[in-house]
């Protein structure tokens, strides 16, 4: 897996490159927009991480240029501009996801994983998702585990679907709020935890092996413990 980091801040870049290498990425780094654009145009990447504020350039312009050449590589925008407005602008400008500096590395990796996987997967043609003995039929909108029907609310269905599509990956609370509830905000209490524990009661309670796991200090993950 190849990643391109376009970031002018030396500390952040070092930190990013180191972290991504530890997560088994092959990383290229460009410290300004021009080099970054050259690399993006000549190489094939699985993910691009672009800072918005580059010397003499707005990172959004790089993304627009890359997109104009028909390249649909997933792009994660990093930005110190923490406003909701900036986020909307970044996502409209061709970014796939947006993270505000400073960021928790788990959050960054979780988002990168989700982006890379989404791009790798065949477009959503599957009609059934499976994780271990948990089964979700996307057409019939039913959930079964070990052949037993599980009754879920529409929102729980979406939550579970997102977790299943990212099975084996850490999914953060913020990601769930953004992707499942479609709002970008800071909940004062961990309202997501309540929903997760309800879902857990439905899909794990009656069964031997728990699937929905809490990843300390980071978020949740759906996978069979091995």
């Amino acid at each position, binding site marked *: 897996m190849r990643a391109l980091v376009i970031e002018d801040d030396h500390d952040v870049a070092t930190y990013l490159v180191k972290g991504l290498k530890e997560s088994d990425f092959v990383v290229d780094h460009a410290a300004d927009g021009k080099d970054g654009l050259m690399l993006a145009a000549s190489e094939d990447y699985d993910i691009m991480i672009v800072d918005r504020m580059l010397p003499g350039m707005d990172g959004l312009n790089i993304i627009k240029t890359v997109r104009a050449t028909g390249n649909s590589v997933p792009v994660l925008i990093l930005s110190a501009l*923490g406003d909701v407005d900036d986020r909307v602008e970044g996502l409209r400008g061709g970014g796939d996801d947006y993270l505000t500096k400073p960021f928790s590395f788990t959050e960054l990796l979780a988002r990168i994983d989700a982006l890379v996987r989404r791009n790798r997967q065949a477009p959503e043609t599957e009609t059934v998702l499976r994780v271990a003995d948990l089964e979700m039929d996307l057409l019939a909108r039913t959930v079964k585990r070990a052949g037993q029907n599980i009754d879920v609310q529409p929102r729980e269905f979406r939550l579970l679907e997102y977790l299943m599509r990212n099975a084996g990956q850490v999914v953060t609370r913020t990601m769930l709020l953004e992707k499942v509830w479609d709002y970008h905000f800071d909940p004062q209490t961990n309202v997501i935890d*309540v929903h997760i524990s309800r879902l857990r009661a439905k899909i794990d309670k009656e069964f031997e092996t728990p699937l929905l796991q809490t990843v*300390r200090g980071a978020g949740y993950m759906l996978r069979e413990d091995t």
Partner: protein
Amino acid sequence: MKILSQLKTSTFQLALLYMVVFATSVFLLLAFIYWRTAGFMTEQTDETIEAEIAGLAEQYRGRGINGLITIIRERVSRDPNAKSLYLLATDDYLKLAGNLSTWPEEAQVQNGWINFTLDDSVGWTGSERLARARVFEVQGGLRLLVGRDVQELTTLKRLIERAINWGMGITLALALLGGFMMSRSTTKRIEVINAISRRIMNGHLSLRIPTRGTSDDFDQLAENLNQMLDRIVYLMEGIRHVSDSIAHDLRTPLTRLRNQLENTLIAVDNDEARDQATKAVAEADQLLATFNALLRIARLETRGNAADKTEISLGELVADACELYEAVAEDKDQAFEQAISLDVKIEGDRDLLFQMVSNLIDNAIKYTPEAGDIRVAVETVNGEAVLEVSDSGIGIPDSEKDNVFQRFYRVGKSRSLPGNGLGLSLVSAVTEIHQGRIELTDRRPEEEENPGLSVRVYLPLYRPLKRKVLRTQQGQQSSAAEASDKPNSEDESGERA
């Protein structure tokens, strides 16, 4: 409507004041002229009569009563229009000579000057006329009346009076019109300044007030305002810069700390150490959240309201928030009632509004004991969207109600509960940039222990922009002035029992 608002302007009121002063001066001037003219004419009449009397007296002294009668007859025959009036009568008012047929009633009681009405028997006019005369007794019990017909004089006086009245009326009308026109051109220029100021207040900080280049007082005002705006923008940039620096300088090391704790979490396989690290990560997250909230509030407050606004169904947004939080309330065994009208549309920033609503619901759940009840309602009241979140919790004492919107302010009773004291500050900032207002009231004021709280947020309804109608007539462009028609009804209707 426009005329009414025109009448309220200080310029017009000034013009009106000037008009009153002006009209009073005109009135005094005309009154003086009238008084002098009329006085002068009356004096003239009296002098003429005196002269006549002097002439008659001379005749009488020289030729006795017969001479007097002769001279009266002579004078009457010389004056067919009967401008001068004479009447010589006996003691019991029988006519001896003169051109009046009878002794006027007004003259029977007094000597000296009298004013009386002539009947139509005198002269040739055939209408009642006014006259002025002097009467006195002549020796031997005879009475003599010498006077002048003053009808023309009176008519002239009436004319002058009418002219004065008309003159006053026209003066007033002209002054009113002039004041209106004068003040309107001034008002128009002020209105331009006002309209632009309103738009600037609504967040278009780059706008400036246009000047005509004449360097008159309005231009100077506009230039001063523009310079003030430049200064404000500069200061706001400064605030923004400072808050960005805080964000940058403090959040970054905090995040590093958090990342290191995460690494520790992964590295150690001692359960107790992990628990400690997990708690530390949670603390760091709490701190980061506080910084983020603080920065966000600062941003919102400096940004004004140039947010990316779209048409939003407030009802649906609140229903989404309820769906997210209902589970939390259920876990606390709280009744969670919703009365949400889905067709309430407002204009705003979706994420910010969601943050606001979730903060309010979060607070309601947090400050309400187990088995309490929470109610969320959205409705339209008096042309405003109203969001109400009420609970049966510990409430906020009246003395503290104004303070809770301050940053980091926490009501005494709530200090023991988790929270950073920024939730309501954020609610207030979001309401502000949506031109809304907040009301806090006790839900059950009679309860001592848990009076509960009812938070009402009023927001302007979404109004699709009315397209300007361009009329074909020249200069008939209806301007869509920004109407800031805030309903100021403070009544509590729409409250369902």
